[in-house]
């Protein structure tokens, strides 16, 4: 008896599309049982010292950015801020694994990754301030808008990577999402499309333990989120998300494999959100202090200091330099957001269509008249 399976069907002419191709890369699909680490291992010796110092500096500045932004929400200067405190290693190291021509597709918690792409730190807060949806030019920074609906930016990354590959451009797209996002349909559709199209795209899941209040055990029954890659025929990788050089190493490997035609990778970074989901959340309702305290011990900045100080890679001078840079940025954030932004109400109609519809022209005239009437009352 002949047993047919999908490999037999693949031998049927025309069964598999030749244009998009299938995986020829020999990278193993299953993630290792334990997350990859660099700090505290021999791999550290092979890591570029300048990269390590740069990672450290950016972690420190990023931590201060998270703190200052959270403070600004308490002062009513930002509408909301989902802090990535404790997750800075994922943010910084992931963005640093990209080259200039690559694209980042961030989720709403990934402001620091956006900043690490070179976007001005204040412009990166435009959405969260509430003055406009994106403050930065996505094309100029090759960074998509911060995406609020979960995982919906993942198929965009696939499409952009696919288009770039068709154009023959060596461009890779990285999309970042959280553990909750892996339950969404768009995540799975994006993985499947990426695999079938062999698109140069990397998926980074920052597993911080909770989707707002729902713990991972109630989110997924998989052995790890990285295991989800296997069903799509792409490699899954597990990394300590608080180990910045490890995140950088895993993502650099995945990004370069994608660039060289090896197709997509799903990376799960194990990390923790030590603050609440946003300033509007009360995390004490769903997790206990011991758990938070344990993760505070596994802090990405402390880990760097613990392992790099004895090697002389981090010295007092670097610590001071990073702290000064962080304070200067915090001061700039306070100064910039001290006053309310001056916004043009007529901009509401500016970018709905290339050309406003007759109905929008009419409504714009209505608002203009209301503004004129207000101004007249004000002048009196």
């Amino acid at each position, binding site marked *: 008896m002949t047993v047919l399976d999908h490999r037999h069907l693949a031998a049927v002419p025309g069964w598999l599309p030749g*244009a998009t191709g299938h995986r020829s890369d020999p990278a193993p699909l299953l993630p290792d049982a334990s997350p990859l680490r660099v700090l505290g291992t021999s791999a550290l010796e092979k890591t570029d010292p300048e990269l390590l110092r740069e990672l450290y500096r950016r972690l420190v500045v990023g931590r201060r950015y998270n703190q200052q932004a959270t403070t600004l929400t308490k002062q009513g200067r930002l509408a909301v801020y989902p802090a990535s405190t404790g997750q800075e290693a994922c943010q910084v190291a992931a963005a640093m694994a990209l080259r200039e021509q690559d694209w980042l597709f961030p989720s709403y918690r990934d402001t620091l990754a956006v900043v690490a792409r070179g976007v001005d730190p204040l412009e990166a807060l435009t959405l969260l301030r509430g003055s406009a949806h994106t403050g930065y030019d996505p094309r100029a920074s090759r960074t998509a808008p911060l995406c609020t609906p979960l995982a919906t930016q993942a198929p965009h990354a696939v499409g952009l990577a696919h288009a770039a590959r068709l154009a023959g451009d060596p461009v890779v797209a990285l999309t970042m999402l959280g553990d909750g996002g892996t339950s969404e349909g768009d995540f799975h559709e994006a993985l499947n*499309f990426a695999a079938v199209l062999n698109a140069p795209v990397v998926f980074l899941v920052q597993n911080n333990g909770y989707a707002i209040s729902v713990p991972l055990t109630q989110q997924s029954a998989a052995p790890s989120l990285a295991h989800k890659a296997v069903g799509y025929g792409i490699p899954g990788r597990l990394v300590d998300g608080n180990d910045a050089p490890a995140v950088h190493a895993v993502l650099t490997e995945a990004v370069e494999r994608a660039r060289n035609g090896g197709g997509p990778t799903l990376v799960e970074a194990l990390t923790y959100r030590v603050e609440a989901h946003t300033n509007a959340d009360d995390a004490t309702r769903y997790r206990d202090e011991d758990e938070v305290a344990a993760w505070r011990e596994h802090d990405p900045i402390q880990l760097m200091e613990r392992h790099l100080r004895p090697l002389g890679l981090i010295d007092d001078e670097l610590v001071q330099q990073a702290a000064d840079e962080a304070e200067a940025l915090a001061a700039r954030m306070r100064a910039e957001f001290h006053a309310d932004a001056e916004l043009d109400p007529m901009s509401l109609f500016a970018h709905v269509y290339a050309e406003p519809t007759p109905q929008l022209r009419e409504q714009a005239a209505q608002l203009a008249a209301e503004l004129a009437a207000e101004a007249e009352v004000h002048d009196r």
Partner: protein
Amino acid sequence: MTTAPALDAAPSVRTTTMAQALNAALRDAMKADPTVHVMGEDVGQLGGVFRITDGLTAEFGPDRCLDTPLAEAGILGTAVGMAMYGLRPVVEMQFDAFAYPALEQLFSHVAKMRNRTAGKLPLPITIRIPYGGGIGGVEHHSDASEAYYTHTPGLHVVTPATVADAYGLLRASIASDDPVVFLEPKRLYWGKDTWDSAAGVEPIGRAALRRTGRSAVLISYGPSLPVCLEAAEAAKAEGWDLAVLDLRSLVPFDEETVCEVVRSVGRAVVVHEASGFGGAGAEIAARITEKCFHHLAAPVLRVTGFDIPYPPPMLEHHHLPGVDRILDAVARLQWED
């Protein structure tokens, strides 16, 4: 002995079905612009379940006319990324109700990307959706879903009723720098007519007066337009001289033409097969009342499908507005005289 003319030498004036005109529009757009990419489930080897994409993969290759995995959100979401990189994707959603899994991509991203990015990332995506009933399809194959799209700012919503418009409006939609939901009245796919592909492509957003008349105007679009023309013909026996206006585009809405016609005749009936409550007809009737109240001799009436889930095919003829239901409405307009 005669030789068959080369395909390229096809005359610009042709007699074809609407399906063939749509196919020609896709082919011509792909020839004219290498950034136009067609994608969807079954669009490649099969040429689409309605054959609208027939032969495109053979002519342009499987990258330009791509058979995708079966996942509508994935199809449209991938198209978003492709458009961000400079392509003009033309997406096929196989049937009206099959587009619903993609609504989050459509509503949250496709419709809003220009606005979210202050004009930096416009998305020139055309989403082709065969829609409407009257073909004996079982459930999920006959929805008239236009109101979902017209209610979403940032989308253009276009629907042809003639073979010529099928070609011209699809070319215009693909050329548009904004996303267009292009609704194809599937029961008109096989209707034949003569059209001229060289007639030029009109910008979307203009209604067309298909028939002049002095008693009242029937305002409609897409699949209901031929029914209105039939009703107008039948109305002559009652002594009614009906105008028929084809909106062609629901967004932008050609209020100027609609109001001009309504003011000249003073009576209007809006006809569509989608459910009436919260439907496009409600919006059109309200606008006419707001803008033309003093020119109206009677209230604006609507003739629509019932407010029910799309019925099983053996009962659909009771749901879809036919000539009699339209003439009944016209009769109700006459009491003032």
